[in-house]
Every structure is written in C-alpha cells, then in structure tokens.
C-alpha cells in the first residue's frame, strides 16, 4: 500500500488522463471495453482533476537528473518499485470494481531505456494475454528504446506517449542534460510510422491486430523555462500536423525542486496561463484557428485577462458584426462566447424561423460576450435591447467591459508572484 502511495505521487504530475479514442466493445472471455467518445472519468480528486486511469509508475528510481522532475536522481525522496504481478493484480481488481477505465503506466529509467521499455511491454502483454484484459492501456514510451520494443508495445497499448516537456531544445539541454529532442521525436516518429503501416496492412488483411488505435499524446511544462506561448503553441500546431497526435497537454509547472537555481521560484503554479494555453489549443483543434492567428510576433504571449478568442476578436473588429441568421458555421465559431454546441443549435434552428436574441437566450447561448459581436433578427419587441456592437464601441473601450474584476485579480496575482530569473 505504501508502494502504491509513493508511486502514485510520483506519477501524478503527468497530466494526461483521457481514455478516449478507441471504441472496442466487450469480447467473450475477456473483461472490459473502451467507449470512445468523451471517455469515462471515474472520479475527481481534490484538485479537481479527473481520475480515469490508474496512473502509476512501475518504479520511481531513475538514472536521469532532469531539473523539473520530482523523481530526478539527486532528489532525496522515498523510492519504490512495484512488481509486474502487483501492478497487474491491482489493475484488474480496480477495473472489476469500476474504479478505473484502465492503466496508465509510466516508469523511471533504470539500467537502460530498453530494459525499462521491456518491462512496461511485458505488463501490457500479460494484461492482454493472461488476464484477458480488454480495457484501456496507455503506455509511456521510453525515449531511446529500440524499434522492436516499441512495435511490440504498440500492439497491446491503446495510446502511447512521449513527453516533450520543454519546447525549445536549448532549454531542455539546460534542465535535462541527458535528454535531447532527438530522443523524443525518434519514438514519436516510430509510433507514427507503425500506425500508418498498420493502417495499410489492415486494408489488405482483415485480421491484422490494431496498432496504438488511440494515437499518441504528449505534454509540455509551462512556466519552468522562458519559452513564450508562441513557442509552445507553434510546437503543438506542428505536432497536430502529424496524423496520429491526438492531444498535447500543458502542465503548469509546480515547484517541486525548489533548491535548483536553474528553475524559477513560483509560489503557485501558473494556472491562468495553463488555462489560456488549453483555450488556444481548443481553438486550433475545434474552431479552425491557425496558430498565427492566436499568437504572432507582436503578441508572443497570450493575454492573461482575456481568453484567446476574445483577444483575437478585439484585434479584428473588421470581421464583425456577424449575422446569426446567415453566417456559416465557421464564422459563428469565431464569435466570442459561441461554442461548438451553440453554433450547432443555431445552424439547426434557423432553418425553421429567423432567430432573435430572445431565442438565443432561451437556447442557452451565453450572450455576455457574444452580444457585442452579432446581429440577429430583431423587431421592436420588449425583449430586444438595442445592440451596441464592437464597431460602435471600438475595441479599446469594449475591453474593460469584458474583463471581470476576479479575472483581473487572478491574472495580476499570477504575474506578481513570478520572480524573474533571466540574465
């Protein structure tokens, strides 16, 4: 039990949690299924993060000394190793009690990358073949592991991930002298290749087993180095260009190793910035935004007080107002405050009758921000208040109206606590 505690604490800074991406219904003689769609979160920890997979490390001994990592070699923390059978038993028993969707297995690197990867693969293989486990498995691929091992692991895992951690190589070299980008991109490329070859094979032969069906994910630490949001987002946009990359996670840096002079001293993790990055990420994935629209050379960092879509809209008053009753779906998505759900509701309902702002409110469209950017079908009715749009107000006067006091305070606090470490 003590071991599980130590190893869960070591693994918790990995933010990936999703159990989505594969639909695989139950099989006779096997236990488990995966649901696809948005996945199932089985619980929510006190920090509000969802618990969907049993996120644990095989061991937290590690031969590397990465400054940002809690498990670095030079840290004086309790070390433990779970045996292969222990992990398998805990996974199965938790799964059967509906505690989890599956296993997220990671490991510190012991002896050499191949040795570690071999042990991770063995667990996945046993779970599938011996325990007949048909649920979700997420394996971390160890940088520097051989291609044969990755190929084998990919046959058992639903998703594999390699963490980039730091988007710029020179910063990575500074904090993690044993790692370089080559060691991260190499396995990524191998997995990508595996998936594509597998697709080709499955077209020819029906019974080829699937290879990493839920694709890859990766993670970047935010606020540990001096990268701008532009660097981070450009990197993610490039990664999403690969067909198998499903998610890039951003992890606000939690000061775990406070003694290291190479790292900034943060009183609290940069949560607002992390949130803004996720918002930008969503814009790229679901709202047809390009990375250069969100950040450019003038705006290298995201505005902490405004969400990125609103910031974009304020920079581009010429794109508004948008007419709710005629604009196409892509244009609706550009309106601050309208999400994919609202846009879908609007596109469907306006086929029946023209929509007024009263209809929009009734449907649950949040008008707080949207009302400055749209026009709809208004007669002089009791419900319609004259709409003053962005072009009448001008962006610079609209901006203060849209920032709440609380938001301002949170953003200011986060900035204040940051101690500059450049020079």
């Amino acid at each position, binding site marked *: *039990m003590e071991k*599980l*505690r*130590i190893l*869960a*604490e070591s*693994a*918790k*800074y990995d933010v990936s949690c999703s159990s989505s991406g594969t639909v695989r*219904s*139950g099989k*006779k*003689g*096997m*236990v*488990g*299924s995966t*649901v696809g769609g948005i996945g*199932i*979160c*089985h*619980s*929510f*920890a*006190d*920090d*509000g*993060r*969802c*618990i969907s997979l*049993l*996120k*644990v490390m095989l061991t937290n001994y590690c031969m590397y000394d990465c400054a940002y990592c809690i498990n670095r070699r030079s840290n004086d923390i309790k070390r433990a190793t779970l045996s292969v059978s222990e992990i398998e038993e*805990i996974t199965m*028993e*938790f799964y*059967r*009690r*509906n*505690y989890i969707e599956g296993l997220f297995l990671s490991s510190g690197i012991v002896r050499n990358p191949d040795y570690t990867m071999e042990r991770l693969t063995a667990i996945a293989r046993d779970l599938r073949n011996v325990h*007949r486990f048909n*649920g979700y498995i997420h394996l971390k691929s160890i940088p520097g592991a051989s291609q044969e091992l990755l190929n084998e692991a990919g046959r058992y895992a639903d998703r594999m991930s390699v963490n980039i951690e730091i988007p710029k190589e020179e910063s990575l070299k500074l904090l993690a002298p044993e790692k370089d980008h080559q060691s991260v991109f190499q396995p990524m490329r191998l997995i990508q290749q595996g998936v594509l070859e597998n697709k080709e094979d499955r077209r020819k032969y029906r019974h080829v087993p699937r290879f990493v069906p839920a694709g890859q994910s990766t993670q970047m630490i935010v606020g540990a180095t001096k990268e701008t949001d532009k660097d981070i987002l450009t990197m993610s946009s490039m990664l999403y260009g690969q067909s198998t990359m499903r998610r890039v996670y951003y992890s*606000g840096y*939690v*000061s775990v190793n406070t003694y290291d002079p190479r790292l900034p001293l943060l009183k*609290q*993790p940069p*949560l607002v910035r992390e949130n803004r990055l996720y918002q930008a990420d969503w814009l790229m994935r679901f709202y047809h935004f390009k990375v250069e629209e969100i950040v450019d050379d003038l705006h290298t960092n995201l505005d902490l007080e405004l969400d990125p879509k609103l910031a974009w809209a304020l920079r581009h008053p010429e794109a508004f107002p948008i007419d709710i009753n005629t604009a196409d779906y892509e244009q609706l998505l550009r309106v601050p405050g309208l999400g994919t759900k609202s846009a879908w*509701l609007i596109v*469907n*309902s306006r*086929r*029946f*009758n023209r*929509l007024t702002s009263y*209809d929009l409110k*009734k*449907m649950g469209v949040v008008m707080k921000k949207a009302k400055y950017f749209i026009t709809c079908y208004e007669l002089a009715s009791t419900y319609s208040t004259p709409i003053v749009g962005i072009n009448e107000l001008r962006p610079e006067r609209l901006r203060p109206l849209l920032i709440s006091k609380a938001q301002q305070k949170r953003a200011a606090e986060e900035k204040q606590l940051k101690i500059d470490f450049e020079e």
Partner: protein
Amino acid sequence: MTVYVFDGTMNGLLTAVFDSFALHDYPELLASEGDVIPLFCEHLYHVATDEEKAHRVWSGLEKRLPREAMKLISVSWLSELPELNQSLFQYICKVFRQGDISRNFADSDILVVTDIAKKVLREQLRMKQFIRFQKAKDGTYLGVVSPDHNVLPLITGHFRDRFNDQPWLIYDAKRHYGYYYDGRQVIRIMFEDEAGAPFSLSDGKLDADVLSSDDQLFQNLWRTYFKSICIKERMNPRKQLNDMPRRYWKYMTEKQ
C-alpha cells in the same frame, strides 16, 4: 379551458394525443391523475389508456421523426419529471401537424424535451462513472445507487458488455429495484423483503459476513491512491464538486 387527465404512463400520454386528434379538441393542459386541476376548467376529459391507440401514435411518430429524435423522446420519459408531460404532449402534437421539427430549438416545447433528455443522459453517464462495486464471497459484484432519474435501463448494456465474465447486481435504492447479471443475461429483480437484503441501503455497504476477504484491502488501496494522486498545490474543490456532486458521494468508496 380544456384539461385532459391521464394515468401518468407513456401509453396514457400517447392515447391523449390520439384522442385529442380524434375529438378535434386541443387541451390547454395535460394533467396526470392526482394533480391539482386549475379553477377555471370548463371541460375535463379523462383519458382511458388504450394500447392500440398508443401504438398507432408511436408508429406514426416513427414515420415522421428521425431515429435520434425518437431516442431522445424515450430517454426523456425516464426522467420522471412532472413538467415533461405537457411539453412532450405538445411536441408530439406539433410533429403531427408540422412534420419533423425535432431540431427547431427555438420552440420551447422541443427545447424542454431535449433538455430533459440531456439531463437524463448526463445522469446515466454519471452512473457509468460513479458506480462502485464490492465483491461478495460468492463472486458477485454489488453496486448500489440512487440516481435522480430512472436510468438503470440505459446502463445495463454498458456493464454487460464490459463485465461479461463476472456476475453483478446494480440496485436502485430509491426506486427499489435492480438488475442482476448472472453471466448470461440481465434480469430485473426486486427484493420481497428489502430490509433483509445483505447490504445497507443508506451507504450501499455489503454486510461484513458476505464481503469477500480481499475486498477491504482493495478498497483501502483505492482510497490511498485517491488521496495521493491529488496535487496539493492545485487544490480546486469547486471543480471537484462540479464534476462529482456531493449527492453521489454516499455510495462511493473513496469518499466514504
């Protein structure tokens, strides 16, 4: 004002639609038996539930609405909310007059029915998330819940698919029935003597003498894991409550 009173069943509601069209009569209110009838009621009509009529209305709906809308209607019925009756009645009447309007969300009846259906679907997802099984000595896994809406029929398929090699019982403590899977098929069960059941209805715990020997160990392991996975620097109890409201906690191992 015309008021129809029906017996509170789905068939009753569909019969009411049938009668309303047969009588060329459009009621302002559809009340279920036992509801308070408003004061200014000139015409009161009691709907006699008729399966034949109900069936005709239902198959008429199937011809006019896409399958997804039909599913939402059935799902919304499981909500057991009294405010659904009136809206659903008018929704169905409108379909027979105007055709497929299932995606006109500016219409308040359609909006109410769709929103209620979404509530039910959210509740069934939460059941899939938050049901916690305990293992009994004979190898049966027991989970007790008390959902806001009657969602057990929606989730048995999921659990049957997922845990097809283990017998399980999911019991609704609020509605006093459950589903038992014996390894081959799912059966609806009720206890004749609920107090004599080997588990407690208030916190869902199995009695100690039927709990399998290693179950306590795994429950404790899970609680330990739950505590240690949290990052203390990022405490966010509000989000936790948002995603996992307190009403589910009483049956959840990690929160007991």
